[in-house]
């Protein structure tokens, strides 16, 4: 058991810094006076962060991912259903990876 101390310390350290990142955004914003410009910025974050998360996979991995992304957006737009879009998207990427 004493040999496991570095591993436990590492896990606790990881947990600590990760919680800091989760609480830090809320905490830092308490020093920012709300203004129309700040609120306009906060409203833009969800879309921009989501685009940033997916952009490398959608645009710069392979043709299968790019085409499956197009299919997913079309299905989401037509059905307004996230679950259906997810299932069709996963099926599309699975088929396209085998075909391409």
């Amino acid at each position, binding site marked *: 058991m004493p040999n496991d101390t570095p*591993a436990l310390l590492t896990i606790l350290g990881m947990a600590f*810094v*990760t919680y800091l990142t989760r609480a*830090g*955004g809320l905490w830092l914003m308490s020093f920012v006076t709300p203004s129309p410009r700040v609120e306009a910025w*906060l409203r833009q974050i969800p879309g*921009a962060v*989501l685009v940033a998360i997916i952009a490398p996979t959608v645009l710069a991995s392979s043709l299968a991912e790019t085409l499956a992304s197009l299919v997913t*957006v079309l299905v989401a737009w037509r059905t307004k259903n996230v679950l259906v879009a997810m299932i069709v998207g996963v099926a599309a990427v699975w088929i396209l990876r085998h075909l391409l």
Partner: protein
Amino acid sequence: MDKANLTASADTTSKNITFTLSGALLGARRTIPIAISVFAIGLVFGVLARQAKLSILESFLMSGLVFAGASQFVALSLWIAVPLPVITIILTTLVVNLRHLLMGASLRPWFSQLPLSKAYASVFFMVDESWALSMSDFAAGGRDMAFLLGSGITLFVAWVSSAVIGHALGSTIQDPAQWGLDFAFTAVFLALLAGMWKGKSDLLPWAVAAIVAVAAAHWLPGKWYILLGGLAGSVTGAMTNAQ
């Protein structure tokens, strides 16, 4: 006219925020499809943790206390060194998870009406997927902040249980990428984005976010691309939409 509408809606958005059990249950229900994919990825984490010589208890603790998939996989890739590079792993975890700062900042208007204890407890369970679902629900008019907590706890249960099961089962688990399951998160985020699209005013900020993210993913290690793309896109949007 756009500006008047935006400020009017901003005034109403931060009022009448609730935090109820039914809100949490709604968040949980909406999250179940994604939790299935999270469970599949968590199984892989458990398998890799076992290969990296983590005990089942350590795998359980890491998934339960850190609860941030990308940084946990990166940590496993560093875990093989002897002696264990404790500081390197902790600092790398910090950098990979810096994107949470932006996500937390975007929650501030919603949490400003609620006790701080609820806000700081809820963000422990905030991951990309639960945050994205919540922002999408709020954009559609939802006003119950417990949605975020219910969604997060659902993913937490899937993530922690799958880490333990994956560790116990070992290499009998197949790679989810073989079934296209690795694409599930991208598909969900695309579908949420399709619902968030408000019109041409989103085009420029989203294009900036995409270009900066692709460039950063190419040139920089880890997850810097999310923070940089998200910052560039949101600042662009704030400047073009506030005029």
